[in-house]
């Protein structure tokens, strides 16, 4: 694939705003900024199942573009979102394995090869370009993964994600379970 310059990306972002229903341009710009920071190297946790290593690497980058590491919050991968997804794909969400594979394949195609093998800038641009190319059905699939990412970040730690409640702490949620 041919890589876009940042200026071209910003122009592309304006087109994406029209493509993505209701997506404000500023949010896309934020995503780009976040993506630059989020798509750095990831270390896959042990024990992930169902998907291939390359697929997991791709999903890891996608997840970190949704919940990137910020000054005050950990990234999706560091909160355990992948472990949550792996466990879900073995059980409750087992019929959604195809969604993950399709998204990983889409990014592989956009990257012209192994998405995870790209450098950080290339990954950021690839994700944005890929998001801009999605048809309605593909956007729904991306939203499914985004939904799972949110669940892995914010559900009870017993489901594999939100390690030690770090996702809850990130949004300053303190659950009460035993009265005042």
């Amino acid at each position: 694939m041919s890589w876009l310059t940042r200026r071209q990306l910003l122009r592309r972002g304006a087109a994406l705003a029209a493509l993505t229903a209701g997506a404000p341009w500023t949010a896309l710009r934020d995503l780009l900024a976040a993506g630059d920071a989020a798509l750095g190297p990831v270390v896959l946790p042990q024990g992930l199942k169902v998907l291939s290593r390359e697929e997991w690497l791709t999903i890891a980058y996608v997840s970190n573009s949704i919940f990137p590491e910020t000054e005050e919050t950990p990234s999706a991968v560091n909160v355990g979102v992948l472990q949550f997804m792996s466990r879900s794909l073995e059980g409750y969400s087992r019929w959604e394995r195809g969604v993950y594979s399709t998204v990983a394949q889409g990014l592989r195609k956009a990257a012209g090869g192994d998405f995870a093998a790209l450098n950080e800038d290339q990954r950021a641009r690839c994700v944005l370009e890929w998001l801009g190319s999605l048809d309605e059905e593909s956007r729904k699939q991306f939203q499914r993964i985004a939904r799972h990412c949110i669940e892995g970040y914010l559900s009870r730690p017993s489901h594999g994600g939100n390690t030690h409640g770090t996702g809850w702490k990130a949004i300053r949620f303190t659950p009460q379970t035993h009265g005042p």
Partner: protein
Amino acid sequence: MTAQDDLNADEVDVCVIGSGAGAMPCALTLAQAGLSVLVLEKGGDYSLDETADDELLQTIRDMYRPSGELDPTVLKSAGKTLSSASRIGQGMYLVGGGTVRYAAISWRFRPEDFKKKTVYGSVEGADLADWPVSYEDLEPYYTKAELEIGISGISGADPTEPRRSKDVLLPPLRTDPYAELIKSAAKRLGWTPFPIPMAINSKPNAHTGTLACMYCGWCVGYPCEHYAKNSVDITLLPKAERTGKFRLLKKAYAQKIETNGRGLAERVIYSLGESRAAFSVKARVVVLAASAIQSARLLLLSASGAYPHGLANGSGYVGKNLMFHFEQGCLGVFDRDFPHDLYVKTGIHDFYFPRGGSGFVNHCSIQSGSQLGPIHYATMVGHRRGGVYGGDFVKYLRANYSATQVMLALVEDLPQWENRVGLSETTDAWGVPAPEVHHRYHAMDKAALKSTLEKVSRLQREAGASQILSFAIPEHVSRHNAWHLMGTARMSDDPAAGVLDAFCRAHEVRNLFITDGSCFPTSGGLNPTLTIQANSFRVGDFIAAEMKGGRL
């Protein structure tokens, strides 16, 4: 004799289908009258372990609803299939039904709710009707339900609330910072805020034996691990079991009601667990309370030579006039954090009755809540951002989650003939035709919701919200999440204009009764559970008297 033979030899005075709000008051009344009662519940028990306050399991994966693949509902609107495997109308497949996870809001309907046609006349496109019972008919049973279930609140605090013959309410639940903000703001606007009557104990309830609320915040959508939310399984069911006349069969899926040569209901055919093997129980009386979609489905599944269009469906009204409510939330973002709460607190009914020139006849309720669960909140924020996430998304969640409080608009869903339950060509895992639900909101429903949301938004701003997120739930999502299921077998004195008489007895099948929300001719603008419970107590008294008097 095999276990199956034992089950098939079963013979009882009354077979009740369902164990929720519409079932248990009637079942308890009949068992206390000395009649043998068998309850068939499609679900099983629930757990109060760490899953009880698990947002993912309870309110997203709906752990007590079977999956849409195993037990689908086909959902259609305006001729378009919205979902071929919806979970709408499954209620909660649990002992105690929907009351286990409900919000526990426990209103009495207003006298005008029972006289919709008289008060408002005809409305184009809607099938308004009066109930064949009045508020006064139901009033003693509201009192009974408030006592037997256990309701906290202040009698008369709601200016639209009708007369109570006796005040049996527990004191109101405690207030909190958000409720105080809302109360002050409402008063500044000249409105009258009041604590919503709740089936949650503000103090230990000696009458039901249930405990006081611990204010842990896990109420709406969750079973109560503190035995303080008065679901019927912890209030009425234990009393029924103590009579020695009551049996509960769990995981029992009723699939057909068979009639005898005289056209009377005689047997209920059911399966147990995942097996397709059929069992049956013989009963003198059948009480159907499986919730409005499933009850209508069972009547349609019970078609026979004598009842070719479905059991008790000579009028054609079975399945028709399905009603939900139209609910939407409005989030206010404040400049302070609030403690985590998921229960409902303050009501506003200054606009319950529509004013002249409003352009709608719907009754409308405003109910302040508290926080959304974190997963729901983050999902909603992501949706509002057009599905775009990233660093700004995370920063927004962090800055605003604890500062955001939700308020709800709940609007009456006008009955419409075309809003209906039928049978689908799709079958469930047992090979039984799934329900096919058709529903679209009336133009007045939409106008009423818009008007109410404007008032909700005004109140949130007056209370100090700097930002309003009026999350426009798509109509089909509002239906998909509907917990309030009504209509489908309406009461009417005229056998040609309804399925049931004033005592919820099928006009055509004199030993068949329906005591869930199916019997409602109109839906009111209020959460329906207490009305379902009161009516179920009333019908229970009637059946007991008829059976004791040898007329049934």
